[in-house]
């Protein structure tokens, strides 16, 4: 408590304090040529001060508080530069020599780096690393993080980013991973049909300057996330023409980039064009994905001498998409394609007020519009007229031949169907943010950030549709453009206090709070509020003794909560339609049968109690410099609560079925008959020759299934990430990076389910459908409904260790990396638990109905009883299952058999065995060679030894070859050529 009071006091003092300030002016110059470097950003981050050098490289920083500050320079095409400056008077003519990024530099870095002086765990990957790795798809960038696994780039693979998680886990980690391109959130909330992070394969990787990945506690200015942020920074600044061509086994990429100095003080325009195309199969050109990205960014600094305003306007567009055609040698004109068009606009203004009360004011306005049109054109044929059900209303309907009929009898013979699915997610975002940074005395620095963030998401797409309803198969219109928009207004405040001790030790404390108000008008959810507090602290100790073993140590710790807003898929699950065939007269001579169906139209079930998915994250770490060794270690513990889950609900349903045998006694010749059906009772009437005969029918009972989103149980993850960089020689470095990761989740949501289907019985039958209620489900995807399963969770442990040797030959402008990726631990196990106790029963024989409580016994079949069941007659009465089963066993064999069908069984005896995969490894080789200042060549080979080793899988006790397996990438290689003109 005392500490909190101290912090608050320090913040208050800082706000009120006023002190003297100085000016730093100087020039940013190219270290080799001595020429001024225009458009370089010169910053003192801890004071929120910045300047942009003019085209001659000159800059001025005003109102710099006295004391020691870290001055940083960022400029496109140059290595990041930082230096300490001690300010106790005006500093003029400061010359900052910066190095152009090239392999001539002895300490060039081509791997991901732990972001220096960040208060929480975050990594940065710069252009040289992206070039060296030849990244073509942003979805694979996480392979550069500690312990990352190499992914062979192919754009037909639309895998999504998910930080600090593995595949097939609960908690929607991908959905909770935020991706920003130049400050524009790639919002996926308005996309229907998926619950995941946004697709990143449309991002032109050649236009990326750097990537920052925050896996720890993000600043409160970042909301609508639960698993970290990936920030992609695009080129901004003056540059020569850069022409680049990359090719690997399946993908080719061509790009052109140029940063044009408009002259005088007219700013810089960055132009970028990239074309990339991937084939799914090397041998066949018929399935491919391509992107054609054109970007234009204008940035300029206004009011340089008074109140500098740095303004950036960017527009980026992509025309591309996926196309899959049938091999023309094998089929007709069928194809499957997805046209993808993307327009991204961003306006970013930063005003350096630099007054006592306000240092910096920034305004961001951005918009992202995506249009995805899936176009499926396929050949179809039938010898019988098929009923295409387009009914939107509950009731009985009979098929007709007009395309306007609710049930259309389709054609016979041959035809084509043109099916579209249109999504047009649109996201707009406005941010107003104010920073006040102040130094009090020489040791205390404070920063206060206040901001407001308004975002809106909608979808102007039409959904799935057909232009010709006469051939449109069973389908219902569900227009995305009719769905209510999602609005979110957030206010946030973050305060940071940094105190310097001795000469250079530093304690930094950061506290922030974000309040999101999410408005979903015209829906049951209306307005929902959520709070996200976040705290971080960092202590840097620097050894003043030159030549000491330990040069510096930085410790950081933080805790934060983040909230992931629901997406349209969660808010507006598609309507359910239950269609059942209730009458079929015979097929006529022209192969038409006037089928009748009962349709139950069920509106989406809103869940008034739905809470927003929330992650509590604890992040601790240490960074250390031990002479030539740099060490970074981060630990994390996250719990995700209220993860979104889809469940089924069941409603009793009765319908009338009319047997065709009822037509046997009808004397009306079939050619003269017409059929009608009463839409509410289902009575079929045959008319003709002046007669009308109502056919007898029988009533049948079943259940209607509908979908609903609920909150799942807590998901836990913890782990340790490390990076150790050792400079063996100036020209040879060694890196060890790895991760130990552990995941555990057990879902205890009570879900309704019928493992053998819903059942359908005559109303007069002694048997009627039953529904079971189970504790938890093993479903990991929020897009699929949770269904009864013997396992309701899993636990896994992974330990991956990568070792890289990097050889630099600056004189030859050559860099080579040999990377070994080792899996030391890969262990997973299915779980079946509830309330910390056992949940299922281990049985001796596969068909048994009774067994011993399941406590993890290996090599046993496992069965799961529902906790309750309900009947068709009384669906709301939950009956204890185990008791009912025991009673029915002795008194009601028919019920006993029926109840037995509600028992869920493991498919194999080894299902619950732990699957421990023996250690394995693969090796990659990368080389980049610059030829003069204008030409650069890179080559890589993933898994270049094409390992043929085997691993043992303890679950089945089988050996699996690594060749073509999921454990290591396939042998893959690529080449790139870069020209700077």
């Amino acid at each position, binding site marked *: 408590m005392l500490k909190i009071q101290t912090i608050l006091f320090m913040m208050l003092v800082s706000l009120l304090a006023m002190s003297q300030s100085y000016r730093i002016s100087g020039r940013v110059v190219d270290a080799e040529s001595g020429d001024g470097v225009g458009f370089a950003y010169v910053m003192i981050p801890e004071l929120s001060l910045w300047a942009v050098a003019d085209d001659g490289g000159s800059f001025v920083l005003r109102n710099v508080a006295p004391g020691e500050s870290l001055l940083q320079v960022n400029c496109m095409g140059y290595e990041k530069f930082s230096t300490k400056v001690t300010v106790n008077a005006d500093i003029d003519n400061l010359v900052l020599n910066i190095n152009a990024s090239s392999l001539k530099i002895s300490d060039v870095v081509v791997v991901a780096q732990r972001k220096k002086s960040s208060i929480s765990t975050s990594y940065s990957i710069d252009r040289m690393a992206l070039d060296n790795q030849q990244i073509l798809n942003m979805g694979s960038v996480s392979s550069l993080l500690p312990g990352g696994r190499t992914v062979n780039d192919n754009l037909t693979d639309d895998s999504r980013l998910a930080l600090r998680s593995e595949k097939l886990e609960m908690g929607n980690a991908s959905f909770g991973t935020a991706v920003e391109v130049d400050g524009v959130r790639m919002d996926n909330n308005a996309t229907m049909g998926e619950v995941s992070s946004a697709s990143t394969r449309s991002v032109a990787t050649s236009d990326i300057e750097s990537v920052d990945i925050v896996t720890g506690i993000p600043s409160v200015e970042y909301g609508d996330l639960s698993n970290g942020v990936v920030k992609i920074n695009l080129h901004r600044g003056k540059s020569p023409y850069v022409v680049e061509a990359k090719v690997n086994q399946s993908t080719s990429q061509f790009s052109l980039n140029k940063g044009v100095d408009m002259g005088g003080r007219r700013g810089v325009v960055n132009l970028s064009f990239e074309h990339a195309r991937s084939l799914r199969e090397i041998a066949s050109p018929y399935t491919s994905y391509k992107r054609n990205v054109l970007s234009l960014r204008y940035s300029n600094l206004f009011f340089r001498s008074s109140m500098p305003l740095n303004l950036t306007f960017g527009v980026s567009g992509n025309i591309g998409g996926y196309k899959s055609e049938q091999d023309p040698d094998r089929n007709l004109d069928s194809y499957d394609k997805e046209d993808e068009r993307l327009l991204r606009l961003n306006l970013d203004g930063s005003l350096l007020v630099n007054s006592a009360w306000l240092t910096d004011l920034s305004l961001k306005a951005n918009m992202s519009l995506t249009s995805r049109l899936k176009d499926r054109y396929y050949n179809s044929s039938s*010898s*019988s007229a*098929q009923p295409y059900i387009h009914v939107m209303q509950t009731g009985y309907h009979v098929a007709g031949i007009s395309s306007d009929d609710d049930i259309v009898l389709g054609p016979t013979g041959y035809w084509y169907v043109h099916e579209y699915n249109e999504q047009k997610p649109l996201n707009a975002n406005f941010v107003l943010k104010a920073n006040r940074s102040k130094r009090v005395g020489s040791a205390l620095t404070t920063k206060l950030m206040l901001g407001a963030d308004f975002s809106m998401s909608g979808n102007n797409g039409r959904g799935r549709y057909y232009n010709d309803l006469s051939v449109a198969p069973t389908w219902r219109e569900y227009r995305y453009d009719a769905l209510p928009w999602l609005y979110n207004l957030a206010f946030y405040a973050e305060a940071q206090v940094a105190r310097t001790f001795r000469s250079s030790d530093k304690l930094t404390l950061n506290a922030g709070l974000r309040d999101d108000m999410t408005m979903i008008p015209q829906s049951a959810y209306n307005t929902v509020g959520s709070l996200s507090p976040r705290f971080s602290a960092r202590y840097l100790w620097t050894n003043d003794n030159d030549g000491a073993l330990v040069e510096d140590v930085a410790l950081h710790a933080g805790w934060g909560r983040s909230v992931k807003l629901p997406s349209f898929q969660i808010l507006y699950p598609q309507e359910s339609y239950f269609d059942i065939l209730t009458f*079929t007269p015979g097929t006529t001579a022209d192969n038409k049968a006037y089928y009748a169906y009962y349709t139950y139209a069920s509106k989406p079930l809103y869940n008034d109690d739905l809470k927003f998915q929330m992650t509590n994250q604890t992040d601790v770490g240490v960074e250390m410099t031990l002479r030539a060794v740099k060490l970074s270690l981060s630990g994390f513990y996250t719990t995700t609560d209220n993860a979104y889950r889809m469940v089924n609900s069941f409603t009793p349903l009765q319908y009338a079925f009319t047997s065709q045998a009822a037509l046997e006694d009808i004397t009306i010749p079939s050619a003269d008959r017409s059929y009608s059906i009463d839409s509410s009772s289902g009575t079929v009437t045959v008319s003709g020759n002046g007669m009308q005969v109502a056919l007898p029918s029988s009533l049948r009972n079943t259940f209607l299934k509908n979908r609903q989103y609920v909150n799942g149980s807590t998901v836990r993850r913890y782990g340790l990430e490390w990076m150790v960089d050792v400079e063996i020689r100036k020209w040879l470095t060694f890196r060890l990076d790895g991760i130990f990761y552990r995941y555990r989740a057990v879902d205890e949501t009570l879900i309704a389910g019928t493992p053998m*289907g819903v059942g359908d019985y005559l109303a007069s039958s002694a048997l009627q459908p039953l529904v079971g209620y189970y504790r938890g489900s093993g479903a990991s995807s929020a897009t699929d409904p949770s269904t009864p399963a013997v396992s309701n969770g899993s636990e896994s442990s992974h330990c991956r260790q990568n070792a890289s040797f990097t050889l630099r030959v600056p004189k030859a402008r050559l860099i080579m990396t040999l990377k070994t990726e080792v899996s030391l631990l890969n262990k997973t196990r299915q779980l079946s638990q509830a309330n910390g106790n056992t949940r299922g029963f281990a049985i001796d024989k*596969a068909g048994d109905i009774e067994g011993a409580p399941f406590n993890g016994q290996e090599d046993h079949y496992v069965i799961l009883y529902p906790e309750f069941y309900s009947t068709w007659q009384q669906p709301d009465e939950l009956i204890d299952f185990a008791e009912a089963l025991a009673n029915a066993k002795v008194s009601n064999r028919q019920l006993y058999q029926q109840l*037995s069908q509600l028992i869920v069984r493991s498919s194999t005896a080894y299902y619950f065995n732990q699957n421990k995969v023996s250690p394995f490894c693969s090796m990659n080789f990368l080389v980049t060679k610059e030829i003069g200042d204008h030409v650069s060549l890179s080559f890589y080979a993933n898994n270049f030894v094409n390992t043929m080793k085997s691993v043992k899988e303890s679950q089945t006790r089988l050996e699996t070859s690594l060749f073509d397996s999921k454990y290591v990438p396939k042998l893959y290689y690529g080449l790139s050529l870069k020209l700077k003109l």
Partner: protein
Amino acid sequence: MKKLFFLLLAVFLVSCDKDDDKTIKTYDLTISVNGVEAVFDSCYVMVIDQQNNSNSCNLDASGVTTFTVPAGIYEVYLNGTVTDAYCRTIYNASQTGVVVGDKTANMVELTATVTKMQTANPLVIKEVYCGGCQKDDGSGKFTNDKCIILYNNSSLAVSLANVAVGMVEPYNAEAGTHSFLTGGKLTYESDNWIPGINGIWYFNSSAEIAPYSELVVAVNGAIDHTLSYSNSVNYAKPEYYCMYDPEAASSDGGHYNNTSYHPSPSEVIPSDHYLKAIKYGKGNAWPMSQTSPAVFIFKCENNSVEQYVAKEDSLVYPADKQGNLTYACLRVPRAWVLDGVEIFNSDAVPSSKKRMTPDIDNGYVEMKGGFGHSVIRKKDEAASAAAGHDIYVDTNNSSNDFYEADKCSLM
């Protein structure tokens, strides 16, 4: 016996002569029988007098025979039996009070009554057409036109009451997993049953199959497919049967109501020609393999098909798939199986495995799907010639009994 009769008669006459010194007058009693001309050599006529003395003799080729008897009152009987592979045919006729004497015609005309008895199962699967045919627009194959053709190998009409059609797990012989195959041995081989997967179809109790006749069962799509697919089959014929029962539901609520697979049958087919389904597996169609089914027909003994399936232990699951409806099978006693045929995909014979036990089918027949091919039982030429009707071989070995034909016999 005949000799003894005449000896006794001679003694009797001699003794009369001795007593009365008078010759006994005899008469020719001519007996003609209608309806036995084709089997005259298998028939005989017996004459019995009032003292229960009898005499018999065979008919000639015109169905006539003559006895020389004294005047009196006689009983005349016709007896004959013809036995073939599947039937015993009994010819009977009689007339009593036949008076033989001077003033009578001494002629008897009998009309044989014919009684046939089935002595062995005459029902066979004559043909399985399951691979589909090529579409007219070159877009591939059309496979929703399968059929099974049964044949009655006998001269006796056979009732199809309680006769059902099933298929053995797995659907395809070349499937990677044969759930009942352990260590290369079918787990049910040492038991007395065979697993019928997904569901079975049974005939209306009044259905029967005429002697030496075939009966077409359209498995799916009992309509005229040739209107769209010229290489396919026209099933819109009133004498055809079909599998159609959209009401049958498995315990999961599933019905055979997939209208592509099971379109409503042609209205020319009477609904009593619809086979009824008992569905216990998953899915909305009866998924008979397009490449390699193992089809069998069986007849429920003692119970109706419905009663048998309703029994508590009638369903059986593979050992590791207990309660899984996808693999639910009917435990069909092998003694009930009338016929079965094991078909292998000719493109995948090395990976195909047997599902039928040797007592049902000790071999297999290959077929290439998608090109209109059909698997047809070979004709027993010798037996057919002898019977004057088509008789098909049935050695319980498809390798011998069937051949792959270029097209379905219904085309």
